[in-house]
């Protein structure tokens, strides 16, 4: 019942670090199984997500990495129940979200919270901070009167390091900086006491100096409250920092192409696409930045989604591609040593 789709790939190993008895050993709270999503566009049907399997466990991080247009955000929205999958299923604590009744579904929505990328667009400009932060609590009748709501808001603001909270309660979004707004968005997500937070590029619009303190705040929620994170980013340096003890899944054109423990995937990337992503990061050191040889793609631009290439989706840009397999057969995502990998050339070796 959990898997109604035809998949050419076996479900990737959720056992990543289970043997270590680390946090990954816990039962997943949110699971994606063979999730697919197609969109119809004037130029034809595109497959934004083409069979993704992920497990998010309490207190641990799954980082979804890839370029714009690779399906990260669609995957995140499906995981949060904001977009319905065309195929496959989303399981919350083992229950298929599609099969939930209204009450269960409301519980799922409260427990899985989404933080959007742009703190300038995601907050209602005519609402004060306390009103925004407690909207969910009031909607679900989880607080009594106004005084109780303000008290709850103050507590939440302190948890995201907006202190003293009294200074922020009655502010409007335009009176705050980008970093402060993003903290308000986090506080709003926390109000529902979520078990999973889905953060979509939540730090990419922030200044470097603020980005790290934001990541530290999110990290505290992960460690102290045991919140599981599905963290979307295009920046492997951020993934490496935030998901060090978790996993990284690299997406390309709607599919996961490499998935494994963060230190392995970022420290020793094997898929040529991951290698290109790691090597593209601008390092804050002029010697590193100019010294090393770079792993270059054959083309900077993503292929047309309405007309994807035959064989491996990545082969037209891949510096390692070999005629024969790469341009005719799509490589399945298979277990390769310490990770899952979908590449003919690398898994052959």
């Amino acid at each position, binding site marked *: 019942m959990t898997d109604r789709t035809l998949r050419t790939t076996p479900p990737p190993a959720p056992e990543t670090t289970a043997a270590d008895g680390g946090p990954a050993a816990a039962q997943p709270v949110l699971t994606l199984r063979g999730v697919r999503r197609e969109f119809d566009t004037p130029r034809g049907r595109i497959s934004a997500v083409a069979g993704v399997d992920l497990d998010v466990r309490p207190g641990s991080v799954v980082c979804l990495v890839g370029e714009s247009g690779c399906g990260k955000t669609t995957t995140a929205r499906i995981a949060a129940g904001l977009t319905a999958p065309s195929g496959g299923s989303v399981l919350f604590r083992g229950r298929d979200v599609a099969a939930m009744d209204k009450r269960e579904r409301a519980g799922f929505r409260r427990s899985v919270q989404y933080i959007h990328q742009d703190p300038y667009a995601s907050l209602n400009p005519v609402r004060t901070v306390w009103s925004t932060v407690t909207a969910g609590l009031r909607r679900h009748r989880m607080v009594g009167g106004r005084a109780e709501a303000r008290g709850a808001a103050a507590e939440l603001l302190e948890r995201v390091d907006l202190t003293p909270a009294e200074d922020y309660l009655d502010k409007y979004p335009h009176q705050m900086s980008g970093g402060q707004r993003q903290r308000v968005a986090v506080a709003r997500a926390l109000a529902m006491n979520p078990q999973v937070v889905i953060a979509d590029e939540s730090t990419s619009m922030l200044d470097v*100096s603020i980005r790290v303190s934001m990541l530290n705040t999110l990290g505290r929620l992960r460690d102290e409250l045991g919140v599981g994170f599905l963290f979307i980013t295009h920046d492997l340096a951020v993934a490496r920092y935030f998901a060090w003890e978790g996993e990284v899944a690299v997406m390309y054109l709607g599919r996961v192409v490499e998935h494994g423990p963060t230190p392995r995937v970022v420290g020793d990337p094997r898929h040529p696409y991951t290698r290109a992503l*790691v090597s593209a*990061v601008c390092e804050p050191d002029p010697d590193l930045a100019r010294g090393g040889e770079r792993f270059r793609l054959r083309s900077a631009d993503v292929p047309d989604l309405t007309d994807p290439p035959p064989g491996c989706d990545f082969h037209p840009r891949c510096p390692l591609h070999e005629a024969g397999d790469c341009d005719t057969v799509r490589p399945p995502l298979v277990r390769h040593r310490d990770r899952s990998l979908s590449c003919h050339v690398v898994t052959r070796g």
Partner: protein
Amino acid sequence: MTDHSTTPEDTGALLSVSGVDIGYRTGRRTETTIVRDVSLDLYPGQSLALVGESGCGKTTLGLGLLRLLPRTGRISAGRILFRRKDGRRVDVRTLGKEELRRFRWNEAAMVFQGAMNAFNPVLRIEDHFTDTFRAHESGRGRRPRARILERSAELLEMLHLDPARVLRAHPHELSGGMRQRALIALALALEPQLLILDEPTTALDVLTQRAIVERLAELRERLGFSMVFITHDLGLAAELSDRVATMYAGRLIETGTTRDIFHRPRHPYTSALINSVPSVSGGRTLPESLPGGPPSLAALPPGCSFAPRCAHALDRCSRTRPEPELLQERDRGMSHAAACLRSTDTALFAEGATRD
């Protein structure tokens, strides 16, 4: 040092900024100074990164250099000397309307932040090129449309774009990275000597950023223009600049070669900025957060503007504003200077020095 009555000696610099203040009108009689006493020299072919957090005056300074400030802004002091292609030096501050039009794009061009909004959405890319050539080329030198399109195609090709597709496209038909590259091609249309780029890679993903970094490096090699780029991304600065100037609360607080700045920073703000960037390689040195935010420019604290956030501030830091101190003298504007009372306190910066 701030005597502007005589033209200073010609040192061969392309751009020579001295004592520039820029303010915005904030009320009927009030003006807030955003940029304070900025002096810097840029030599032909150099690439300077202007780094700092949002709200420190980087963009205002960039706009000021081309006199592109909004109506409420004005350059209230200082001099911006620019060596034109014909060898004459002009003070950008004194240019009249017509001279300014010929100065922009021919001598110096700007790539604005947010490639999404910089193009007119109802015009094709080719129209942006033809408009630019028509507006900024003088009467005699004006080329016919066919020549304009030929030149535009050449420029787009240098940025690895397919001219046949891009020229006929409307901005919304291009991806963010393609738009940004088209914008850089447009800025280079009239072969300016100076290109100013405001956050050229912010909001683009890493592979696109990488493509832009590589194209800019190639183009600079090939066309030899000088570059000032404004960024809060220290990684980008490490990659693309010869020199870095750190800006805080409207002032340049540290300037030096890119190696000076990254390996031997002598201002705590510069080193805090560098330490806040997560790295993808090497040991797992954790980035450190830099608490708080920059001060309001309308109400600067006394003494050093950074003192309230500085982990190393002493009592005297909040009383005395430090003047830039020359730490290492070099020619062609490559000297290392920092405005910190403790910039020569070697114990304080020992940690930064071991980063290389």
